[in-house]
């Protein structure tokens, strides 16, 4: 892509669908539109494709069997299903749920919903890099803790959580571990069996599949309460006619991720480091959000002192670059991001954050362009800001 056309570095908000995925999906809208539950012959190919996609997704996370994968409408539904499903099913065993203070809103708010239904809820603190406090986890686990929900990695600051250690601690107390792997899937190899994960949330678009599709992995033998009731599809756990074209796309995306993840993540890591280094070296009072080493390959989260994130995004957009921000002003609420606040940033520090999330399509040329234009953007906004100390203006 030429630097004169638009540059997309907002993969956290949505990814382009891989053309190979689109090609795989089209026949399931044009020709194989039958319902897999039907008796007649139109059901055959959709049914076969559904199970093939299930196998592909299962392979990507090393699930013990394809049936452990339940297709959903996306990560938000999977998170709701896992948290409410485990909690309601096990309420007679205990009514305590633990999560972290840097989870996605669909995890946060599902847990808060449980609180209104009589469950006890504990939010674990994180350190300044956003890593969950394992000692706090040990301390907070109780006899009546039924579920712990911790993300695999954080989409906003890129920090990867020590999931294996988390799993060991959680299982010592006989609780279940749900992991939201939306941000990590397709970028990091995930092995649910080796890592001791009981339930795992996946999203299709995050691996270049279509939107509106996701999955929940549920360990064999673990029973949960369904939250959507109807015709009993997906082993009775997720009713509703299957979104065959979407699921086929998800399956194809999983297959591609399986084959290309290693080389792609290696490429992304290089671009990410080039971008982070370029920005931090080229601009004074610029800092990295999240962990410097245990970090998603596609995530460059940076903050600039004395200025506000949304005005940086607008400035970038005017130069043809799309990024996002943990800034209050871009969200529906006016609070700064709960993730940045949990890492101990002050409000005014959190406000100056910009998040670049890279993808398959990004090039070194694009990264260099962003590194080149950013100093002037920051300089202009700092000149405008009453918070900028005189000696910082350059």
């Amino acid at each position: 892509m030429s630097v004169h056309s638009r540059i997309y570095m907002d993969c956290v908000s949505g990814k382009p669908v891989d053309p190979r995925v689109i090609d795989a999906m089209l026949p399931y809208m044009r020709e194989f539109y039958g319902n897999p539950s039907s008796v007649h012959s139109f059901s055959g190919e959709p049914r076969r494709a559904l199970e093939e996609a299930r196998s592909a997704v299962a392979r990507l996370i090393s699930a013990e069997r394809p049936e452990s994968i339940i297709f959903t409408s996306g990560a938000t539904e999977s998170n709701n299903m896992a948290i409410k499903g485990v909690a309601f099913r096990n309420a007679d065993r205990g009514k305590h749920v633990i999560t972290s203070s840097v989870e996605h809103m669909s995890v946060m708010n599902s847990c808060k919903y449980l609180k209104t239904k009589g469950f006890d809820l504990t939010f674990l603190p994180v350190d300044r890099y956003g890593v969950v406090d394992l000692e706090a986890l040990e301390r907070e686990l109780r006899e009546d803790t039924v579920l712990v929900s911790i993300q695999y990695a954080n989409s906003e600051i890129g920090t990867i959580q020590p999931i294996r250690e988390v799993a060991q601690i959680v299982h010592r107390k006989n609780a279940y571990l749900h992991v939201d792997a939306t941000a990590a899937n397709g970028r990091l190899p995930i092995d649910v069996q080796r890592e001791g994960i009981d339930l795992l949330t996946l999203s299709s678009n995050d691996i270049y599949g279509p939107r509106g599709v996701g999955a929940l992995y549920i360990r064999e033998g673990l029973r949960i309460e369904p939250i959507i009731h109807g015709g009993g599809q997906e082993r009775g756990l997720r009713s509703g006619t299957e979104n065959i074209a979407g699921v086929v796309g998800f399956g194809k995306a999983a297959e591609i991720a399986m084959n290309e993840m290693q080389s792609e993540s290696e490429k992304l890591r290089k671009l990410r480091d080039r971008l982070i280094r370029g920005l931090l070296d080229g601009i004074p009072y610029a800092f990295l959000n999240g962990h410097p080493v245990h970090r998603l390959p596609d995530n460059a989260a940076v903050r600039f002192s004395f200025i506000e994130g949304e005005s940086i995004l607008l400035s970038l957009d005017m130069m043809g670059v799309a990024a996002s921000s943990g800034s209050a002003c871009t969200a529906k609420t006016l609070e700064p991001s709960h993730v940045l606040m949990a890492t101990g940033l002050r409000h005014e520090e959190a406000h100056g954050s910009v998040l670049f999330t890279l993808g398959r399509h990004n090039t070194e040329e694009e990264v260099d362009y962003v590194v080149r234009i950013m100093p002037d953007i920051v300089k202009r906004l700092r000149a405008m800001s009453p918070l900028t100390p005189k000696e910082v203006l350059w």
Partner: protein
Amino acid sequence: MYSQKVLEHFRNPRNMGEIKDADGIGTVGNPVCGDMMTIYIKVKEGRIEDIKFKTFGCGAAVATSSMITELAKGKTLEEAMKITRKDVAEALEGLPPVKMHCSNLAADALKAAIEDYRKKSGEVKL
């Protein structure tokens, strides 16, 4: 999300900067909320002869600051005191609803600057 007018003022803010020997200075908001602006005015014979702003905040905060300096320049203090948040938003061809409260502080900053001038000049007895 923003009107063309807002984007235009964000791109080319009018009267950005400080007035070294300002007659009145008004600051509203704070960095904790993500929006803070300072208005500087120079007053001559009861009129706003010069006006400048400095703003920390989102696109709407910058655009409203820029717009208020255009609306207030050359006006008498009485006229300037009557400029409302609504006037600023309308002059910008509207603001997104979520921005109406948090980022539309420019009218307040202008009032604060005028009040500061009045205090300093003895127009208002303390």
